[in-house]
């Protein structure tokens, strides 16, 4: 086995993969969230932003390829680890009292599974237009794809908004644990900075979730409209 294979075969190597892929997805979601907030500045700003991204194939495809590598790696490794730890405890306790673990740490895998389903739905919804084929045909006055109209129409449906908001709730828990856990997995631990790690994880998780949730809520309540 090459050293890379034996590293990936080890639980610690797999956790390093979880941490690095998690960090990359996390970085992407921060940028994605900032972009979404442009919806508050109206149709023109938002469509200009969307057209700029689409008009830059190296950026667009670079990001897509990175995510198409990193997201499958993140969940495949997660499934392998979960399988391993389930096998490590074939008989469960009749009674088990958590002492230190948190709701977020214990539910990270369930939140992850919801997020996986959500990512697939999200792509089918706004990227591939599988759920709403008409979205692809929207164009604004300047002939650009009318991403703003697509977002406003998409989020006028309360069921849709609920699916997105539950995903964002899963994200806040996933990251409030994951975003400090990744430091621990990579061996980045120092008494001087450990508290900062946890605070930063919570803060960024909340910023992300509030940022992402604000757009669907604003559309549903009519704050953002066409």
């Amino acid at each position: 086995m090459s050293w890379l294979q034996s590293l990936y075969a080890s639980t610690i190597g797999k956790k390093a993969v979880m941490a690095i892929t998690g960090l990359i997805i996390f970085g992407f979601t921060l940028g994605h969230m900032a972009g979404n907030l442009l919806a508050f500045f109206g149709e023109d700003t938002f469509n200009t932003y969307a057209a700029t991204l689409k008009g830059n194939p190296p950026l667009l495809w670079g990001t897509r390829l990175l995510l198409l590598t990193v997201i499958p790696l993140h969940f495949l490794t997660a499934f392998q680890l979960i399988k391993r730890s389930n096998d490590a405890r074939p008989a469960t306790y009749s009674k088990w009292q958590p002492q230190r673990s948190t709701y977020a740490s214990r539910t990270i895998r369930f939140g992850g599974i919801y997020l996986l389903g959500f990512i697939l739905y999200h792509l089918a919804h706004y990227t591939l237009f599988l759920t709403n084929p008409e979205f692809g045909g929207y164009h604004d006055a300047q002939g650009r794809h009318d991403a703003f109209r697509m977002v406003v129409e998409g989020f006028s449906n309360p069921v849709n908004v609920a699916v997105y908001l539950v995903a964002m709730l899963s994200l806040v828990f996933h990251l409030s644990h994951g975003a400090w856990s990744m430091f621990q997995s990579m061996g980045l631990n120092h008494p001087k900075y450990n508290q900062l790690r946890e605070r930063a994880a919570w803060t960024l998780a909340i910023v992300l979730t509030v940022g992402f949730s604000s757009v669907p809520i604003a559309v549903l309540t009519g704050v953002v409209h066409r």
Partner: protein
Amino acid sequence: MKITLNVWRQSSPEAAGSFVKYDVDGVSADMSMLEMLDVLNDRLESKGEAPIAFDHDCREGICGSCGFMINGVAHGPEKEITVCQTHMRSFKDGDELTLEPWRAMAFPVMRDLMVDRSAFDRIIQAGGYVSVRTGSAPEANATPVMKEHADMAFEAAACIGCGACVAACPNAAAMLFTSAKVSHLGLLPQGEPERDKRAIDMVAQMDKEGFGHCSNHGECEAVCPKGISVNFIARMNRDLLKATLRSSR
């Protein structure tokens, strides 16, 4: 005091086990958990029943032999203490306690509350040797050790290998144990020459034994009778990643 016990009874590694209820009267608050079980066992034996098997040796909280779950907590409700040092004054008259063995694939139940922890021995063996100079005793101050490192190495060396970390971990991971063993030599100059090899080999053995992975829940640290910190887990992760990147293997 009167205590009601729900004890896991299993006659052999292959046998199916189940919980059996025992009412124990006349329990003194000064008895340790194990002394209370001794009293119960005397009564069981005088009735011709098999006594409850549990591991123990020093009964002073230093050997690491004892350990089982009390009401779903490894070593019971008191912090930084083993089962043998848990006294009945921690409970009230009329309490009902569930006693269950450590549960992990790598720790098969031998009988009742007793599990086989030789997986831990094999992890230690995988660590190999340290290249120390033998022969006449060296001058005590010949090898300087940073105070912080000496303290940390000492904290890691306090691990008694009881297995509570594995028992408490939702993933049945042996990360706290292995990290304490990796660190207590890795932090000292005497352990430096084999540091990379030791981290790689001990982690490989830990995985081979079938323990789970670390989700950073922190349950292990909370039940460790020696209060060993999860900081050692991060240190081991760092050691392993560094060792893998720079070793010749």
